[in-house]
């Protein structure tokens, strides 16, 4: 019964997703074609305008020289000059100047022979061929001085230029399409959760109550949609029953007559009263079902908004570069990222406590607002100090949203469903991250870094809005008061060998690879290789994509301690391999491969980390509480987040990029070897910390 329901659920889910996909894809293609058509129509006149402008500047220079006294046919260096124009305008196939008898005197040296012949045959009459279907768009311009024609400029532009331009941005178009799909899915899931799943669950829960003979509750039916109508219908039904009960009761108590006949009735009635519950007076409100999924869309949006700048942030820092504290340029470029990580890490405990106090809805709302403002102001930064201040503000908001979302999920899932809850959290995080990275790169190429940050701020505000409207707080008094970890707790954990090795030789290196390599090195290295923001964004997207695809599979296979240990080691190995590959093949393809491999490494190696710790440090988890141990683990792990960019920067300053990749590869390898030795050779069974009974 249960399994057929779940398969039915999955089948329905797939059906819905498929429908959405088809709808999005069709509209996307229609839109794209319409845009391309408009583009094509606008392109040709623009190309003609450009041709004229170029011809005019050539004319101006020629006349200037002639006015200085240079004979028209003795102009020197025309070939090189026309070449410079050619180079700046790749759609130009040919530029030439001929005398007033039509003999070609000068042409751009780069002009292909084929183009030159084409010019000779098509330039009988000066005209512009209107459709871009032509091979070449020809513009001519007469050079005249004092009313006398000296010669003619001929410009040939590529009729196929339009197609070539579209080819170039095809990748971007596809990326935008994919991201649109993802965003549509997320939004659709959210809407379904809010307006369909939740009401239905509420209704079922309500009927469960009725099954349990409890008619004392009623539903809130204020919305005018199907859910509201269904609720109202249910309420009407229950009201009728309650009314009947009240009626019966009053009739019975008011009845006079034969006591012998009445007594059994009264007994029966009390019997019913003891079994059933009815609404007397004002009915109690049946709370609507709060779904874990409510948080996913706002969280996705928030992560998306911050991730927009991932692909170009080091470049943005570079543009504001100023010498500071005598640090090298590379270290200064990594500083804002490290500062962000540090402020984020330090804010988390405080943010968690505050979020517990004010409730998830308020906390998320304010967190998102702060993030939005921080992002917006980051875009206005004029100096590095500005930027770091606003980034810190963003980090505070980010921490609030992060911890609130995690807590919300923990509070709204039963313990056995925690992994699923985590999966909601993580998939929202990575989906937002990869969409943001891809779109951010494309945006930055077109509207600039600051402007993209303004857009980020705006999207974060939208996230705030959604949280404000849809996130529901639970009963605040029920939130467990978390005990703060004391320094002695930290010490106790750190002296546990297992904790120490897993944290320092698996978790921290992984975070160093994330912030140092992915967030810092990759954008800079891509730029050095000549990639633009869009390709950088796509490259960084690979990380999130791989994780989103593979993490569920990995999770289902990493169930035993043995396999978890193995996965951690594999993760570390993959990380070092990816770095070595990049060291030996410093090209754009290898960057994307390395990023994808890092994604795989993290998909495999990250999720087993804490389960291994909770297995091997069972004593500590029992006495300190799993939550505390996790908190300490995450806190120490963030050392990796914070130090990653700085470490990478120092390495780049000293060794250059390729040297840095090699060193990072060796560091990873060393860490994983040490880890493997510890996990598989040195310790055969779980060890408690020294001094415990």
């Amino acid at each position, binding site marked *: 019964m249960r399994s057929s329901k779940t398969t039915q659920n999955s089948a329905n889910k797939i059906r819905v997703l498929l429908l959405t996909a088809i709808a999005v894809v069709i509209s996307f293609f229609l839109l794209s074609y319409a845009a391309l058509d408009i583009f094509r129509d606008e392109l040709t006149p623009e190309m003609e305008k450009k041709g004229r402008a170029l011809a005019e500047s050539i004319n101006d*220079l*020629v006349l*200037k*020289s002639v006015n*200085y*006294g*240079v*004979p028209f046919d*003795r*102009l*020197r*260096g*025309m070939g*090189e*000059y026309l070449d*410079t124009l050619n180079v700046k305008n790749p759609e130009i196939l040919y530029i030439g100047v001929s005398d007033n008898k039509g003999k070609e005197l000068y042409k751009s040296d780069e002009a292909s022979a084929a183009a030159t012949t084409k010019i000779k045959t098509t330039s009988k009459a000066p005209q512009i061929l209107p459709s871009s279907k032509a091979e070449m768009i020809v513009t001519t311009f007469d050079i005249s001085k004092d009313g006398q024609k000296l010669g003619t400029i001929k410009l040939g532009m590529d009729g196929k230029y339009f197609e070539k331009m579209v080819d170039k941005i095809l990748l971007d178009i596809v990326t935008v399409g994919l991201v649109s799909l993802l965003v549509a899915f997320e939004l659709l899931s959210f809407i379904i959760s809010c307006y369909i799943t939740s009401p239905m669950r509420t209704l079922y829960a309500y009927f469960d109550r009725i099954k349990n003979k409890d008619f004392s509750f009623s539903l809130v039916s204020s919305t005018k949609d199907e859910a509201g109508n269904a609720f109202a219908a249910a309420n009407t039904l229950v009201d009728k029953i309650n009314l009947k009960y009240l009626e019966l009761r009053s009739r019975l108590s008011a009845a006079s007559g034969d006591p012998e006949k009445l007594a059994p009735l009264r007994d029966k009635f009390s019997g019913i009263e003891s079994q059933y519950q009815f609404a007397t007076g004002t009915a109690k409100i049946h709370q609507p079902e709060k779904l874990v999924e409510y948080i996913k869309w706002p969280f996705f949006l928030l992560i998306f908004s911050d991730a927009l700048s991932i692909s170009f942030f080091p470049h943005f820092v570079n543009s504001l570069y100023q010498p500071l504290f005598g640090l090298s340029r590379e270290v200064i470029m990594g500083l804002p990222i490290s500062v962000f990580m540090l402020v984020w890490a330090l804010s988390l405990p405080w943010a968690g406590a505050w979020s517990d106090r004010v409730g998830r809805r308020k906390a998320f*709302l304010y967190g998102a*607002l702060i993030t939005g*403002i921080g992002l*917006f*102001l980051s875009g*206005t*930064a*004029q*100096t590095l100090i*500005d930027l770091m201040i606003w980034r810190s503000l963003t980090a505070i908001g980010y921490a609030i949203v992060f911890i609130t979302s995690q807590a919300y999920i923990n509070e709204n899932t039963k313990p056995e469903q925690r992994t699923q809850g985590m999966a909601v959290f993580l998939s929202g995080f990575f989906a937002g991250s990869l969409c943001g990275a891809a779109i951010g790169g494309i945006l930055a190429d077109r509207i600039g870094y600051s402007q993209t940050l303004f857009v980020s701020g705006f999207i974060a505000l939208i996230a705030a809005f959604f949280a*404000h409207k849809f996130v529901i707080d639970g009963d605040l008094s029920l939130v467990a008061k978390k005990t703060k970890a004391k320094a002695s707790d930290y010490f106790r954990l750190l002296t546990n060998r297992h904790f120490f090795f897993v944290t320092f030789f698996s978790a921290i290196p992984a975070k160093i690879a994330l912030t140092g390599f992915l967030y810092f090195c990759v954008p800079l290295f891509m730029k050095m290789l000549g990639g633009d923001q869009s390709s950088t964004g796509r490259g960084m997207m690979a990380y999130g994509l791989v994780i989103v695809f593979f993490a569920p599979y990995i999770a289902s296979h990493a169930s035993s301690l043995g396999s978890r240990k193995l996965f951690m080691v594999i993760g570390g190995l993959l990380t070092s391999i990816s770095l070595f590959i990049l060291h030996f093949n410093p090209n754009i393809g290898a960057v994307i491969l390395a990023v994808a491999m890092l994604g795989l490494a993290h998909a495999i190696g990250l999720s087993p980390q804490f389960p291994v710790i909770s297995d091997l440090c069972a004593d500590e988890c029992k006495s300190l509480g799993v939550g505390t141990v996790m908190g300490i683990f995450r806190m120490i792990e963030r050392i990796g987040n914070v130090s990653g960019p700085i470490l990478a920067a120092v390495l780049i300053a000293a060794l250059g990029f390729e040297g840095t990749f090699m060193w990072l590869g060796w560091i990873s390898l060393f860490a994983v070897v040490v880890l493997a030795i510890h996990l598989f050779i040195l310790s055969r069974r779980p060890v408690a910390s020294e001094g415990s009974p």
Partner: protein
Amino acid sequence: MIYRTLLALLVFCWIAPVHAAAPAKSEAPKAEKYKIYMILYRGMTDAEKGFLFHLKNRNIPVDIVTRDCNKDVSKVSEYITEIRSMKPDLIYAFGTSVAAKLVGLEGKVNPREHITDIPVIFNIVADPVGAKLVSNLKSSGRNLTGATHLVPLEGQFKGFKTVMDFKRLGFVYTPNEKNAVLILEKVKELSKGMGFEVLPAPITPDADGKIAESAVEPIMKQLVQKKADAVFFPSDSSIISNIQSLAKVTMDHRLPSFSATEEPVRKAGVMMGVVNSYFNVGQLAGYKAEQILVKKIKPQDVPIETLNRSTFLIDMKTAKSFDIYPPVMVLKFAEVISQ
């Protein structure tokens, strides 16, 4: 409540970037005038005009005292005595020899002979390091800074080569002028990498400092014999003062000529030069005076600089007479003198 917070935050957003972008307020000049003592070498040149123009433009109130040593550097000693009693706020010195006499060469400063306690700005010094006035252009380490007018030699010759190729270049100079001798050595160095040979052609002015056409004749004949393709006139004040006769004879011998300074091209028909206009360099010196007088920066903290952009001067009439036409891309940016 939430809307109020939003409003407050929005207002904050408006203020923050405006504040960040607020420009620094410009300084108001002092009410009293700054006393500047200017020592000229050969009268008022465009350099001095540029210097004074900058100060006027910036509304800096100045009291100017001018002394012209009229090519006699020994007069500077008299001026030093006058300076010590007058105590001006700033001293302006034209040219290497005046500056050297006024402040002394680096390491050879004698507080009794030289001025060590009043800021000195030199103008139109070709090579302060080579002339041993300073060892580091970033700071003289003493009460000295200034503006140099020389375009880096490599830039000059690269420019010349775009207009005409030359394999043998005559270098006309007066051996007494330290400047010129230094530059000759540098050009010799440069010539190796740029594919031409330097033919030094020293010429000595007479007792009055004049160079007559008759004196130039044998020099040019020699250069023609050595198959010179062109002639170069460096930043040499005797050469510049006698440029008319020099240029005429050079033209008569059908030799195209290049100059490191602007006067020969503008006034004597020398074919071309990659130069910094004296007027613009003067403005740069004026800017440095502003740093010292108004911003109160010490001279040792004001670097010695030249202009970032130079001018390609071409006398088209001369070029045409040689049937030489500069490439169009040079003509695009060059300053062309006559038709």
